[in-house]
């Protein structure tokens, strides 16, 4: 192992600086195309990401960050286990739909109802992810395409349920009835921030422990490094694979449940798909290069990017999709930086001995 010389550090830093310059240049071009006032847009961006009366915008950034961090954890656990699960969206949607159904029709109220709804959502998300895992193991369907293709049925099934059997017809919208107030996630006193982010932080701590301290997390990581290695060492790789996907899917399901119980208080068609929570989560997990602790700051960063962009749309008439574009550009640079070691299951890249 070579020591970090000043030359190497400065090379590294220049690399990052150049990437930042590119991102900045892209933003400038985009703002120019939208014919926007530069200063005004920047001001709007920062105000809407972090400011607001009583920090209302900052709180909404945090609430968005909670969902993104959740989806990032879901992606990260699967990636570390060697599964390129890009079907987080489907798992999120079935989780949200299941928890809304549980909250509306199981007849359990109050805190117990919240727990039941969350667990139902997690179970549904887990089932959806395990489905892709089963297709991989017993039918040979590649996990990447398998998880992705399951997004569409999830979307359509959810859309069918909120348009037909579960629809709140009186509202005139494709959405379910409002769930009982006793099952809304309580707000942090004195603010309008719901406690969903506390649930996510709790899950985050569990994920950290799982990744670094448990036998299961260790075995999953080893399987992710090399499935042949795990098999030859005698690890039950099918069981580990399905367990990894189940955990990944259940976290996505939990995020769905939190969005339903804390944010919207009902399931609205497209409410989990359009904000691109799942894809932003995947992008966050890729950005941090599978380092679990780093997903919290990275998730906050992307949430701020989205909130800020939404503010630019309101105030400076810059379309909010600028956030999605910048997110894509950032990931392009991350993918091509030499430190990225994200897909370990690929061919071993090593100089010949």
């Amino acid at each position, binding site marked *: 192992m070579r020591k970090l010389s000043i030359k190497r550090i400065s090379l590294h830093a220049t690399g990052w600086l150049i990437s930042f310059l590119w991102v900045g240049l892209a933003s400038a071009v985009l703002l120019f195309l939208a014919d926007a006032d530069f200063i005004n847009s920047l001001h709007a961006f920062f105000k809407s990401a972090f400011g607001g009366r009583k920090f209302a915008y900052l709180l909404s950034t945090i609430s968005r960050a909670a969902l993104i961090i959740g989806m990032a954890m879901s992606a990260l656990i699967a990636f570390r286990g060697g599964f390129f699960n890009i079907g987080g969206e489907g798992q999120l949607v079935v989780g949200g739909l299941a928890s809304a159904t549980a909250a509306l029709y199981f007849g359990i109220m109050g805190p117990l109802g919240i727990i039941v709804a969350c667990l139902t959502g997690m179970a549904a998300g887990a089932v959806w992810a395990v489905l892709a895992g089963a297709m991989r193991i017993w039918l040979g369907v590649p996990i990447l395409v398998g998880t992705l293709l399951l997004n569409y049925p999830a979307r359509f099934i959810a859309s069918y349920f909120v348009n037909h059997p579960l629809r709140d017809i009186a509202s005139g919208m494709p959405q379910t009835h409002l769930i009982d107030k006793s099952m809304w996630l309580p707000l942090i006193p004195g603010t309008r921030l719901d406690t969903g982010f506390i649930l996510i932080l709790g899950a985050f701590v569990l994920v950290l422990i799982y990744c670094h301290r448990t*036998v299961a997390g260790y*075995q999953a*990581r080893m399987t992710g490094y*090399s499935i042949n*290695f795990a*098999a*030859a060492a005698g690890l039950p790789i099918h069981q580990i694979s399905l367990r990894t996907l189940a955990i990944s899917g259940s976290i996505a399901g939990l995020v769905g449940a939190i969005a339903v119980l804390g944010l919207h208080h009902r399931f609205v068609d497209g409410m989990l798909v359009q904000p691109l929570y799942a894809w932003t989560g995947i992008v966050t997990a890729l950005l941090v290069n599978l380092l679990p602790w780093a997903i919290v700051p990275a998730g906050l960063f992307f949430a701020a990017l989205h909130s800020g962009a939404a503010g630019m749309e309101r105030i400076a008439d810059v379309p909010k999709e600028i956030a999605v574009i910048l997110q894509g550009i950032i990931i392009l640079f991350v993918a091509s930086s030499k430190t990225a070691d994200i897909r370990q299951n690929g061919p*071993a890249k*090593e100089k010949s001995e």
Partner: protein
Amino acid sequence: MHENRVDLFGISVSFGNVCALDNVSLGFRDGEIQALVGENGAGKSTIMAVLFGLITDYQGEIVVNGKASAWRSPKDAIKSKIGMVHQHFMLQDSMTVLENIILCNEPLNYFGFVDFKTARHQVRSLLKEYKLSLDLDQLIEDLAVGQLQLVEILNLLYRNSTVLILDEPTAVLTPVERDQLFSALKRFKEDGKTVILITHKIDEVFSIADRVSVMRSGKLISSSTLAETNRDTVRSQIIGKARHKSSKRTKSQPTTPVLLLDEVIVPGLSRDERPLSVNVKKGEIVGIAGVSGNGQAALVEAVVGLRQTTSGAIFIKGKDVTRRSVEERRRIGMSYIPEDRQKTGLAISGDIIENSAISNIQDPYFSSGFFLRRQNMMSHAEKLITSFDIKVASPKHLAKTMSGGNKQKLVVARELSLKTPLIIVENPTWGVDIGASSFIHRQILSMRDAGHAILLVSSELDEILELSDRIFVMFEGQLSKELPISGATRAELGKLMLAKNSTSFGPVGEVL
């Protein structure tokens, strides 16, 4: 004074801080077979990579036909009629023999479409000229190894290469195929071509070469005609210091069988699916020799539990494990040193601690309940590092940062530290430098002396002869009769390893 076809003057190459080639000068003549010998990592392949344009960052000068030349890529070397057959074949599996031979040198019709008729005609006359035979319409994936090599060579001849570089061409060949290759090389020589043969086998040098150049740790040690040197000189030049003699073997005292394969049929092993029976007793090493690719991998997988068998039974320590998983077999008393350390032996992206405890992580020493005992994992890794003299700064380093020999030592250390009654060993010194390799051999022998049963599968005859107590030879998915070590000779083993109907390099046949 002879005019050399190719001259290399003062070539130096370094990778990072490591000096791979140090001021090496070599000359190659027309109508001469020059052998380039040396241990793994001596720099043979590196200097050929420079000559072939695969390495462009070097110091020194390449002179071809008296003209100083600098390559930007293999393309330039190819233009100067230099051709190379690589150790790993560079063929296109789903294309036909003809397509592979003409690839990148196709005769064209209109608009860049290939004129296959002319191509076929040209290749046929080449085959006739060198008295070779080959079915041009077969797919590469259906060919035997010896024929693959022929296709590679024909590709060079088709491009009118005058300098042929062959990198370890005999590593995958049976003795008969090797003889056929050599007689073809002699015909090329008579035709005035320059042949460069990279090898680490001294016997081959003295059976075919005209000139031999020895390399050691990046330096040229000597370059002389065969008449000027002899085997012992070359051997000592290759090794440098005296080779470490393997420890004196005690006679084995095999007692009860630890591994028993009873009429086992492994699917995909051979066409007619004949059953295999082997047993390995306590305190002995049973060697399975054979050219790689004859089903050894499948047999090992079946024994280890990575592959299902369709009939017969496997017993470990008397327990029927035919339907048991790898984990259960390991728990009963098996450990496994796989051939491929990059993908199977190690998780190279993981650190050494993680790699050290993988097979017995459930052991209460390494974990309590759901949680890891990381201190113990760390100290176990340190123990492996010191006891096997693995060269790495700290157990926290990633496995991929180690050299090949140290990686292999780590795999062997981990598996032997389990001290299981049965040890499955698959090509334990493949691509490992001489020091690490004799160290590993000593460790395996001491395990035998300590009463462990060892199944050794290896394609290196020397390794088999050095370690085994009893020997089987595997050919096309079948095992030969058993040979005790006392009666086994290289010649006899070679005969058993030989393919029945290999005509790749035979004289011109009726096929044309």
